[in-house]
């Protein structure tokens, strides 16, 4: 199964509790459909956005950046995307396929800290 990377910007004003549930929900979406979650990476909590973004009838200037690396089938990836787009806590989310090759997956080393 290919390795994917979810780059997500969620609302800056989220509490840690709601943040946790959001992450858990996205991981469960992958796991329930026979995927594997590799890990999460925090890129910054409540950071200023590069430009003003409008989502869910609101303008946003700050957000939390985070990544999720996971293995899944392409269909599951699409389902995850559509789910997150509906979520009001999420400003922007994009999924990128990192690689198909096993050697590159093995070499991939995210959040080794």
């Amino acid at each position: 199964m290919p390795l994917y990377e979810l780059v997500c910007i969620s609302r800056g004003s989220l509490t840690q509790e709601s943040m946790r549930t959001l992450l858990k929900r996205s991981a469960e979406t992958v796991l329930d459909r026979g995927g594997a979650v590799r890990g999460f990476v925090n890129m910054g909590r409540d950071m200023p956005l590069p430009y003003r973004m409008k989502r869910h009838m609101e303008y946003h200037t700050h957000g939390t950046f985070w990544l999720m690396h996971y293995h899944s089938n392409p269909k599951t990836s699409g389902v995850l995307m559509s789910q997150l787009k509906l979520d009001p806590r999420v400003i922007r989310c994009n999924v990128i396929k990192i690689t198909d090759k096993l050697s590159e997956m093995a070499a991939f080393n995210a959040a080794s800290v």
Partner: protein
Amino acid sequence: MLSTLRTRLGFLRPSVFQAARRSMSSTTGTGPENTPIDSTKPTNETSSSSSSTSSIDEKKVQMASIMSDATQQQKQTPAQLSKLRNSLIPSKVYENATYTRKFKAKTIYHPRDLNEMEVLKASRRIPEVDSSKDPFVALGINPLKDYKNTNLLASFVTEMGKIKPRYKTGLTAKSQRRLSKAIKRARAFGLMPVTSRPYFMYNYKSLGRNVGQY
């Protein structure tokens, strides 16, 4: 004295008068000066401006004589004509050139280097990119995999956030394509500003070492 000479020997060329004048007036020192002649002025044999120096007049006269010969004969080849003309080109022609170049002694020049147009063309041509000087090639990095590294991408973007063209970045075509793709991706994902250069970066260190390249 001079006037009588003129009236008597009116059919002779003015160059004779120049020689005569020079021999007569030795004290009045207007020696031959190296002032440039305006070769575009039409030379007139009869109108000899007495104030000008003898060398210029001589040259003018020579030019005029050659021109008159040419018109009379009309059989001189263009090569011969140009040869004659070139031998009398004054220094002012080079002063008016749009491109001045210092030619050093003891160096070999190609005929191409002497042609002004060719040199200007060469200077306008975009220099070929040396792939060894491409930072991505040298480090073995795929810029597209580093789309999250806005600090790296910032150096290839102008103050206004525009992607720099290849002749400014000095990258190979392949690298430039991948880099621009990475920048566009970063903009779309909301990681990089569109109308300005990124001046701060999120916590890239949390991503760990060698995170972009795998």
